[in-house]
């Protein structure tokens, strides 16, 4: 008994402080993996790592290089560029409420945890992003040589003998990314706090249009995260549905270099050009849009959906995306008056959460 008490006392000196969520009333909490309990100490370590360029092999790029807070943790570039200068074929996704995401990346049904996802930018070589593959020891040595990191790892993983590992790097990064929570936009004040005055009349009209069967936006940008890919503690089923929007024409032949989305994972021809409907939270700040950043502004996006797709006359995949046979039946086109367009844009801007975009707790810890 005495031994047991001593053992408890020995582990008790390390503080693992459970994270307290700040969510709107009645909101369910995100699901947290059993093997990565969310603690304040892990989040703090993860925050340092997220902003640290030493995590890339050549020391030139951090997670935050492509996931910038002022852009809702995305970047204002059509496609991302890795640490070695290699171009990614996709737009850096905004990291907003990803703690609730059921699957990660633009089109992958099998990546269901942030801990899994972040191994792609860290270690992936098609394309190289952080370029850590083959440089693991070197990168860990940089962290081990830094007394601040030794302390941060010790606080975050006090029970582990070996603390500075990539498993812990991934767990800490995932923990920080889970705290990128945005529920304080004017829309949230209206929807979830019941504040009628939080939205302007134009924003309310735009919201009604967004939710209407005429426009069908809310069929895919559904629910509290404006995405069909959410799960949470009370959810019985993780929702997910990948859609063809008509951004590109269908192609029977395989065009080298083309991004066929879900098809690359499943190999099912019916999955060609299927992508995830991403969240629209803070969408005004996360331009450009679509999986390849090929639409520059929200006005372009409204043009695209009102036309029911896009016609391309040049480029590697010319043709009529509107006629893609697998296109979502909800993308059928619509006509907007000038006022309606203004209202819709006003509504989309009501999803901007300034608190989130400027929260110092989510910012670079080394910033002055």
């Amino acid at each position, binding site marked *: 008994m005495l031994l047991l008490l001593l053992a408890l006392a020995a582990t008790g000196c390390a503080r693992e402080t459970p994270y307290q969520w700040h969510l709107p009333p*009645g*909101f*369910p909490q995100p699901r947290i993996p059993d093997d990565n309990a969310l603690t304040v100490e892990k989040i703090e370590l993860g925050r340092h790592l997220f902003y640290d360029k030493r995590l890339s092999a050549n020391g030139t790029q951090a997670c935050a290089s492509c996931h910038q807070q002022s852009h809702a943790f995305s970047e204002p570039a059509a496609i991302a560029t890795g640490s070695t200068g290699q171009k990614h074929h996709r737009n850096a996704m905004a990291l907003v409420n990803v703690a609730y995401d059921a699957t990660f990346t633009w089109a992958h*049904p099998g990546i269901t945890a942030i801990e899994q996802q972040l191994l792609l930018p860290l270690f992936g070589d098609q394309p190289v992003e952080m370029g850590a593959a083959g440089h693991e020891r070197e990168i860990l040595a940089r962290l081990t040589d830094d007394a601040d990191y030794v302390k941060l790892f010790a606080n975050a993983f006090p029970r582990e003998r070996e603390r500075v590992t990539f498993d812990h790097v991934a767990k800490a990064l995932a923990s920080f990314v889970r705290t990128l929570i945005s529920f304080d936009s004017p829309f949230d004040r*209206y*929807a*979830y706090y019941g504040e*009628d005055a939080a939205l302007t009349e134009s924003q*309310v009209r735009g*919201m*009604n249009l*967004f*939710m*209407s*069967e005429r426009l*069908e936006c*809310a*069929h895919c940008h*559904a*629910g*509290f995260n404006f995405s*069909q890919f*959410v799960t949470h503690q*009370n*959810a*019985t*089923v*993780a*929702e*997910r*549905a990948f859609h063809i929007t008509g951004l590109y024409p269908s192609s029977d032949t395989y065009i080298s270099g083309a991004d066929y989305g879900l098809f690359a994972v499943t190999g099912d021809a019916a999955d060609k050009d299927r992508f995830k409907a991403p969240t629209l939270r803070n969408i005004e700040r996360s331009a450009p849009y679509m999986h390849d950043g090929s639409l520059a502004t929200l006005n372009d996006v409204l043009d695209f959906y009102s036309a029911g797709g896009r016609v391309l006359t040049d480029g590697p995949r010319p043709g009529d995306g509107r006629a893609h*046979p*697998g*296109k*979502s*039946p*909800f993308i*059928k086109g619509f006509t907007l008056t000038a006022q309606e367009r203004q209202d819709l844009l006003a509504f989309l801007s009501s999803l901007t959460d300034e608190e989130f975009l400027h929260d110092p707790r989510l910012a670079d810890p080394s910033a002055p």
Partner: protein
Amino acid sequence: MGLILLPALALGIVFVASCGSGTTKAEVRFGIVGGERATLHSLQFYVHAIELLDEHGRPHPFRFAVSAPWQNEQVALIDLAGDSTTAQHIAVQGSIGGDGGAYSGIRLTVGVPFELNHANPLAAAAPLDRGEMFWNWQSGHKFLRADLAVAGHEWAFHLGSTGCSSASALRPPAQPCAQPNEMQIELRGDPLRGVVSLRLDTLIAAARAANYVVCTGDYQVDPACKEAYAATGLQPGIPQNLWVLQ
């Protein structure tokens, strides 16, 4: 004369999706209907107010078992298109006071009672917490959601209340909607020996008639809804053609 209390029997009302005359397995995902390949992406609906009719035609209320995540004491969600990644639920579990004798029919409502239909699904008790079955506070839940592809054409029929009046899409109506669109179904036969079947062939015919334009509202005026809405039995004078007891 003493009152005799009969024990309640635990029962299940089983639902299936059927293609034409033959009944497929509940987990049907790929069916050949009318010579064409149909793929079912989603086939879900809410059921409440079930009554079994005895041989004299007298109704006996079916008491819902509380069994999260699929049913509470008032409403059950039936999902006939679950696959390996999503669960499915094909039977309403419950009980009925009585002697377990033969029944001659069943009454049920496909829908969600108004007082439960317009609340925040995030805060609602299962099974009304399923986001993909919710439109918004004003319109409430989709009572029936069918998303399918027929011969490569995607189509959807989502049925729920229309004509709901409130300050915005995000505010619930205080009064019942002008068109509640709850389907009240009465079927002949013994529901404990048979299964309640949702006719895919009717849905597929409606998809073709709509030229694969989705029907998700404006049921009475949208030409894409003409055949699907007629099959619901919600139009006066036209009997429903979606449900059979097999």
